[in-house]
């Protein structure tokens, strides 16, 4: 019954729509119905006779005035109602936070072993207090926060308490709610308490157009599948991530310390952002064995993929051949990546090739690249800097001055 109530409530017509409809009806009556017959009773519309005598365009102006007045009344009413409601919720929150949350904390964090009877009494008391949805959410949010930040006994206690509160109907109805706020609440709860029977619904939400819903669903999906393949949904049909999603996935992977990732499928995916994700994860987890597959992406037309491939190749570079490959592909790199390549060359075992290349950069490339190349040369061979210091090229001289500036 409770579930039905919550479910139906989201579809109830709001107060505003009732008011708008009423004003529309009143407006139609005033402006277009001369008299109203209710059985034997006839109600004459006095406004109509007055309004009917004015020009047509002024009649429309009058109607607009009527609409504006109604709108003003509605806005004022709505604002007052909203402010009062907000204040009431804030007061309820304060009372709850001050009075009941400490009790909850005491139960969760005390070393005292409660008997089953004691637990039952406490649970009953808590259930009575959290009668409104607002308070139920507050309690679950508190439990969720504690669960996410703890391990061991306290973590288990929050899990057990959540199960004992029997909030499944709330999660179920909120997950189907029309309000984003409710959906987020449900997804977060599912994700934290690992409620497995909602997986298919969550999978659908990973493709939602709403960014925050999608993000939360991604996190939940990865949490639910933390021990199997948390990225399986990424390769599922119809999933196209954004840069935001990519960052969320990488962040969650890091938090979960995931080991099982299908790098090859990710890197070779036809979807650009998924390929990008694969390369990023390989670099982050130092998966040097995929160096060759990633090197093939250096000339990818998508700038983000090629940039990421360059970053990975820089990070994986070990021998002279790796560094020489970077030198060969230098012109394909974006401006910022060019600087990274120049910087990494100071660690190349093939010093001669590196120095020749750096000298070429100093003599023929842009100012920022000249500066970076001179920095690397400074590390490799200080005499070269002294040679360039008296160069005829003004930009090379300026760059040298910057390198030699002790404050930079």
């Amino acid at each position, binding site marked *: 019954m409770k579930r039905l109530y919550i479910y139906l409530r989201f579809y109830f017509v709001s107060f505003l729509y009732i008011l708008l409809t009423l004003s529309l009806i009143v407006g139609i009556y005033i402006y277009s119905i001369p008299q109203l017959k209710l059985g034997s009773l006839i109600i004459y519309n006095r406004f109509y006779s007055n309004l009917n005598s004015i020009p047509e365009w*002024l009649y429309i*102006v*009058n109607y*607009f*005035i009527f609409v*504006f*007045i109604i*709108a*003003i009344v509605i*806005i*004022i009413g*709505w*604002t*007052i109602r*909203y*402010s*009062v409601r*907000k204040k009431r919720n804030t007061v309820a929150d304060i009372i709850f936070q001050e009075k009941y949350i400490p009790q909850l904390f005491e139960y969760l964090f005390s070393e005292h072993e409660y008997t089953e009877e004691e637990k039952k009494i406490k649970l009953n008391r808590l259930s009575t207090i959290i009668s409104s949805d607002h308070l139920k959410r507050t309690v679950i949010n508190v439990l969720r926060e504690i669960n996410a930040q703890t391990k061991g006994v306290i973590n288990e206690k929050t899990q057990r308490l959540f199960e004992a509160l029997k909030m499944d109907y709330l999660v179920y109805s909120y997950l189907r709610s029309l309000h*984003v*706020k409710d959906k*987020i609440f449900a997804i977060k709860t599912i994700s934290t308490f690992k409620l497995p029977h909602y997986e298919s619904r969550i999978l659908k939400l990973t493709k939602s157009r*709403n*960014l*925050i819903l999608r*993000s939360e669903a991604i996190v939940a999906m990865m949490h639910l599948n933390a021990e199997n393949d948390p990225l399986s949904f990424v390769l599922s049909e119809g999933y*196209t991530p*954004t*840069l*935001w999603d*990519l*960052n*969320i996935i*990488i*962040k969650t992977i*890091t938090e979960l310390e995931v080991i099982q990732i299908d790098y090859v499928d990710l890197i070779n995916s036809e979807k650009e952002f998924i390929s990008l994700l694969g390369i*990023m994860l390989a670099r*982050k987890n130092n998966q040097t064995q995929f160096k060759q597959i990633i090197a093939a992406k250096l000339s990818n037309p998508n700038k*983000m993929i090629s940039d*990421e491939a360059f970053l990975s190749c820089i990070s994986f570079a070990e021998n002279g051949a790796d560094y020489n490959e970077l030198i060969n592909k230098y012109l394909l790199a974006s401006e*910022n990546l060019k600087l990274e390549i120049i910087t990494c060359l100071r660690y190349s075992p093939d010093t001669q090739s590196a120095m020749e290349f750096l000298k070429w950069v100093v003599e023929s490339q*842009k*100012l*920022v690249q*000249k*500066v970076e190349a001179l920095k690397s040369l400074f590390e490799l061979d200080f005499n070269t800097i002294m040679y360039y210091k008296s160069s005829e090229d003004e*930009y090379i001289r*300026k*760059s040298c*001055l*910057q390198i*030699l*500036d002790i*404050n*930079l």
Partner: protein
Amino acid sequence: MNTFNWIDIITSIFFIYGCMLFALYLMNAILSLSEFRRYSVKNKYVDYKTMLSFEKIPTVSVIAPAFNEGKSIVENVKCLNSLSYPDYDLIIVNDGSTDDTLEKLISSFDLIESAQAIDVHLYTEPIRNLYYSRNPVYSHLTVIDKDNGGKADALNAAINVSNKDLFLAIDVDCLLEPDAIERMVKPFLEDRKYEVIAAGGVIRVVNSCVVENGKVIEVKYPKNFWAKFQVLEYFRAFTLGRMAWSKINALLIISGAFGLFDRNRVINVGGYDRNTVGEDLELVVRLRRYMHEVEKKKYRVAFIPDPLCWTEVPEDFNNLFRQRNRWTRGAIDTILKHRRMFLNPKYKLIGILSFPNWVLFEWLGPIIQFVGILYFVFLAIFGAVDYKIFLTLLIFVFTFSLMYSLFAIFFEIYTFNKYKGIGFFFQSLLVIILEMFIYQPLNMIFSLSGHLDYYFKKKTHKVWGKMERVGFN
């Protein structure tokens, strides 16, 4: 044609103009409502702290020109230095100040001259020196000291020095919310279909608010009446106006006090125009033209309605007059420069709707209003006014304005609720009523003076005019 026919024709022109203006405001209200709903659903529950641990985000330079800001520069730089974005640097441009701005910066932040070489993409007045801080707390602060060349010139110099993906152009006296950059950058990360080329944010009035260590600690409704009028005006302009134009991707202005831009694209279009006082509007129009004429890609100028940037607004008649006069001159300059966009379908909604809006209601608006008032007086003198119709139309305008402004205030209370308590709502109600009879007519006069200065004072029409600030509480 007899006299009465002439009167009918002129009256009809004013009537049609009024109807168009009314339709525009109605469109604004409807579109902004829809866009607000969409934005709210998409962003209300985003935890921006997650962005701090993101791997792939654009790098940002916060650039702020300063001219004779000695009184508050230290406090402002401290505020800008405490933003939470993971990868940003701060570039302050001392645009040839004649007061102690540079000296204060040097002593407060332990600055030291450096010989950094600069890639010059945009022409600017000569740079005298670059300074960096020896204090690790200010390691990402760069101060450019250059010859005076105006705000646009200073911004261009900072763009030259920056090497980040995006730049956030702000007024140095603005106070930013700690997560301001995250919120502004978000559209650059989330859009799949469109490339975001710039993002504009909302400016809020800081007068009377409590400021501590460069942060707004307590938001208070201004005590000064001029500031109160501007709070209302900013609500309407940002919440309803810009939100609506953003909905149809036809926003033409990003406030100069707070706007995020793609640095490479700005360099490609030649940076800020040094010859206008409306450089913020002009840059966005030029960027849009560039996207339509050169890149021909799907793109978007995003708008973030969250209150992220706080600024001090003029609290007296003279400063307000100078500010509005300058805004008008800037708008006229841009409109005339890009006049070929007017009703040009090549620029899609920008050419068909947004640019004509600027021409008809921003440029010509004050002139038509003024002529309208003169015309009414003329008709009244000759007894040709039907007072019944006049009164009906007056009530129409009055109720519509009241509804429109209340709508903006309701949005604020419903979404951001920065001004606490229902008292703010009722105070605003009074301000709305007074605004219609005091502030709106004055604004018309300020704009008219801008017109006169632009057309008849050729020597001064590109002068910024002095702005005096009261300072923070």
